């Protein structure tokens, strides 16, 4: 055992990414790279119709093709359905298809070319049914009911909320205050009403969904997958396939980007049936056109906001009705209410005595809605923070002054009634106001805009195994994947700090779901908080035992587990300000300056932390200015990444980041969440800046040059 001449890590030093060299040299294995002997390739016949009855499927010719080992239809998989909470998405469609791109027939063959050849030989006959393409059509009294059997769908947690129309997927009302909301609104001097909408988006990760499934002789189902939630996937597969969860072992490779989209796993289910039918490992990776058109997207939303305000700018009451287009299946939503909880964030950083936010998700004959970085918040923060500027303009009050007046102070409750103990709302707002030179006069075409909001810490449960090894090193075993956020690097640093040893003494080992402790998965800005705390607990245990027993010839092992619910004290507050230049002839918007001020607590990985804020800004820039999955009659028409544009480094404005510390958190070493923080405020800040620059108030994303041009005509 070496002596500790090297100190434990200092958080202010930039970290070295554990997997950096592997990724830079191309040696990192992703799902599609994982070798397996003698695999078959899988592919799918997809529905060309938004809503249709399947009247006949002829697979004879495909089956006869040499090298084709299985051709399965919905009846071959016993009508199995899957989902993250409600199991409503058929593994393969049985009688009805509900969106363009839905899987109808699965093929396994010796090569990708053979798969394509076999797919072309399958003949499916459909009888088209009336389709509903948007939520308002779907909830009309005479709308066709998309899921007549919805009451029978299994759910994994909780119970499905009662709904007012059979095409409503999910519903949630969060209200606070001792008065009826309409009454509270009436009591204000003025009620300001605004309506906003946001489009579907795709996360745009580099690695498309991929999976590899095989069965072992003892019946164990082995899965390698791009899922960011291996344990949740094992549970979902157990439920959908009627297998004991112990039989399913998920052992993921590197995940090539997630941004929320890798929470839904859909390939693994048909691959299981193909592997079972053929006795061979079966693998598939989605072409990116299928990624865009037929996996799961950010929910499009329409939002009606009403705020009762007094003449002095005080917010008295706030009501929001948020309607999400849930698409054909609710399977991609993990919440029991089948809504995006982030939708309640229309006024997240303010103290409003009376609030009522109603979230509704609706079935339509379009690609299913799912999770994408800050699900629900991207929609609700855009609406809420643009709405605040509308109020400011109506009252003739400066937008920053109006926010400052209503910003949450310590002891005040958040939107769901939890008390903020250390809200940094005023501090972050003041920081960006100064940095962006808010008061400086600007010429026509130039304007500044701001957004203020907060996001709670990630909740959930997870555990790690920590081992002290006789050679003086430590092993941290986790089942959590690193989807690019630097999870494993952060856990190593936390372990080294908690153990009081140098970072290079700690090795992070990722293991399958069978060889590691349960973890909710990489999402909801949860990992550093949950697994970080679990690591600290395990390290405390190890230190104590080392002190008592000393290091002998065998490893000492400790398990650390942690579960956290939401706490308002752990909220990360953030303000973002941008300056834009609008070309008043073409409408083109250029962001010329940007500032983020955020309270993210103690920073453990400074480089990754900065990357989350800067990358979050870029992510928000995409939502603000360019990203839209356009859908025409149920067909995603933004079919390639050539049309679905993502921002590049050349599009980034100069961006300054200001760290504010208000304290008060249960996160490890005082850390707060940062992963899903910075993106949501960019669209409203830019929309507000465009309004300041030109007088044009845009209420739909993305904020296109053409929309500005049209409004200026």
């Amino acid at each position, binding site marked *: 055992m070496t002596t500790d001449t090297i100190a434990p890590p200092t958080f202010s030093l930039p970290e070295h990414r554990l997997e950096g060299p592997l990724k830079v040299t191309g040696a990192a294995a992703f799902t599609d790279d994982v070798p397996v002997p003698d695999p078959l390739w899988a592919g799918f016949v997809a529905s060309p119709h938004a809503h249709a009855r399947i009247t006949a499927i002829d697979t004879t010719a495909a089956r006869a093709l040499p090298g084709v080992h299985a051709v399965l239809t919905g009846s071959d998989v016993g009508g199995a359905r899957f989902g993250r909470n409600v199991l409503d998405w058929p593994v393969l469609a049985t009688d009805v298809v509900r969106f363009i791109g839905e899987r109808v027939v699965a093929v396994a063959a010796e090569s*990708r*070319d053979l798969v*394509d050849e076999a797919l072309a030989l399958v003949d499916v006959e459909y009888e088209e049914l009336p389709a509903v393409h948007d939520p308002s059509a779907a909830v009309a009294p005479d709308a066709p009911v998309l899921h007549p059997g919805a009451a029978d769908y299994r759910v994994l947690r909780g119970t499905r909320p009662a709904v007012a129309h059979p095409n409503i997927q999910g519903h949630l009302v969060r209200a606070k205050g001792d008065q009826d909301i309409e009454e509270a609104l009436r009591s204000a001097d003025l009620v300001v009403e605004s309506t906003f909408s946001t489009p579907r988006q795709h996360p745009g990760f580099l690695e498309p969904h991929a999976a590899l499934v095989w069965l072992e002789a003892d019946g164990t189902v082995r899965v390698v997958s791009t899922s960011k939630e291996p344990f949740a996937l094992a549970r979902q597969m157990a439920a959908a396939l009627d297998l004991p969860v112990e039989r399913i072992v998920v052992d993921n490779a590197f995940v090539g980007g997630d941004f929320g989209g890798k929470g839904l796993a859909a390939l693994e289910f048909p691959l299981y049936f193909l592997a079972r039918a053929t006795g061979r490992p079966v693998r598939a990776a989605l*072409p990116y*056109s299928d990624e865009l058109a037929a996996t799961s997207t950010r929910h499009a939303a329409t939002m009606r906001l009403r705020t009762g305000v007094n003449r002095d700018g005080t917010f008295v009451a706030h009501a929001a009705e948020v309607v999400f287009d849930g698409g054909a299946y609710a399977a991609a939503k993990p919440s029991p209410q089948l809504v995006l909880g982030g939708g309640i964030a229309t006024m997240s950083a303010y103290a409003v005595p009376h609030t009522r936010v109603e979230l509704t998700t609706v079935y339509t004959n379009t690609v299913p809605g799912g999770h994408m970085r800050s699900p629900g918040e991207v929609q609700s923060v855009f609406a809420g923070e643009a709405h605040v500027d509308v109020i400011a303009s109506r009252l003739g009050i400066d937008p920053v002054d109006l926010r400052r007046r209503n910003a949450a102070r310590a002891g005040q409750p958040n939107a769901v009634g939890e008390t903020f103990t250390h809200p940094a709302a005023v501090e972050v707002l003041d920081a960006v106001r100064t940095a962006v030179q808010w008061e400086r006069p600007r010429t026509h075409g130039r304007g500044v805009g701001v957004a203020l909001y907060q996001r709670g810490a990630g909740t959930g449960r997870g555990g790690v195994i920590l081992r002290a090894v006789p050679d003086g090193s430590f092993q941290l075993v986790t089942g959590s994947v690193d989807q690019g956020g630097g999870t494993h690097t952060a856990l190593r640093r936390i372990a080294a700090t908690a153990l009081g040893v140098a970072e290079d003494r700690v090795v992070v080992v990722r293991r399958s779901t069978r060889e590691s402790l349960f973890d909710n998965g990489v999402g909801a800005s949860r990992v550093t908080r949950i697994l970080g705390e679990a690591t600290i607990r395990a390290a405390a245990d190890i230190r104590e035992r080392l002190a008592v027993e000393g290091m002998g010839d065998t490893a000492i092992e400790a398990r650390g587990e942690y579960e956290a619910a939401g706490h308002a004290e752990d909220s990360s507050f953030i303000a973002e300000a941008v300056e834009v230049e609008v*070309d008043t*002839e*073409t*409408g*083109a*918007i250029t962001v010329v300056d940007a500032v983020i001020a955020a309270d993210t607590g103690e920073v453990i990985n400074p480089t990754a932390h900065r990357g989350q804020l800067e990358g979050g800004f870029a992510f928000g820039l995409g939502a603000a*200015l*360019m990203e839209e999955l*356009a859908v025409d009659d149920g067909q995603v*028409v*933004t*079919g*390639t990444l*050539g*049309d679905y*544009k*993502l*921002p*590049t480094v*050349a*599009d980034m404005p100069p961006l300054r980041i200001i760290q504010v510390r208000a304290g008060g958190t249960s996160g490890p070493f005082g850390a707060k969440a940062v992963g899903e923080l910075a993106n949501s405020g960019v669209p409203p800040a830019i929309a507000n800046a465009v309004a300041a620059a030109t007088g044009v108030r845009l209420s739909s994303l993305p904020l*296109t*040059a*053409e929309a500005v*041009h*049209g409004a200026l005509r």
Partner: protein
Amino acid sequence: MTSFAFHPAASLAEATALLAQYGDGTQLLAGGTSLMLLNRLGLLAPDHVVGLRDVGELRGIAVDDAGALRLGALTKLRDIETAPEVRGVPVLAEAAHHVATVRIRNQATLGGSLGHADPAQDVPPALIALDARVDVAGPNSTRQLPVEDLFTGYLETSLHPGELVTGVAVPRSTRGTRGGYLKFLPRTADDYATVSVAAVVDVVDGRVTRIRVALGAVAPTPVRAHSVEAALVDGHVTSEQLRGAAEFVRQDIDPTSDARGSASYKNDVAVVCVRRLLGRLLETEQEGR
């Protein structure tokens, strides 16, 4: 992606022979930036592909005895952007600079950007504005035609079966010739143009003696703005005249609505782009941007 038989050619003669041998539908692979994308999207599934990488006759950047710039079809767009020889003509390096990203420009070729005949490419409008000619070789003959006449429709050229682009000749520029390229990109810097304009003008004693204006992304092919040219040639151009002339571009273009904007928006923007670019070249006024 579909599989195909790959036939690398070692010479121009071999390339044309392979094209003749495998016939209709055989595709050429130079940089692959278009072919491989179309193949992956299932829009092009050739059985045979002839590789051009080793065809020496298609390489090279030189200025010939007449002062014309000769560019081989395999010239990378990055080389057009950076080669000293190209700096002797206006607009061309500037247009090449605006193609996608450096990574793409290091791969994509001049011949490919012409043969692909995508109207949103950046280099073709510049070549048209420069009155460049394209060299074409068939199995038994070669010919030369104006770049403008190469394009017949969306992804369609006037190349006969078995012919390929071997290079481009850009005529010598005279002193006083000015050129420029304006690519309107309202979403991201890494995109095809919503509207692009290339122009080359000769100004003698304040008088426009020659003007060629070409636009990309606003019609099935790159197009000349003949109406704009006619309104400005042979005159001392004031900003007022330019403002009026730029409006004529609506007659020369036929944009379609797509993810980059509606047809009506592209018409409006084309007017602004033409006016701004020509304003910059003719120095009629300080144009804001």
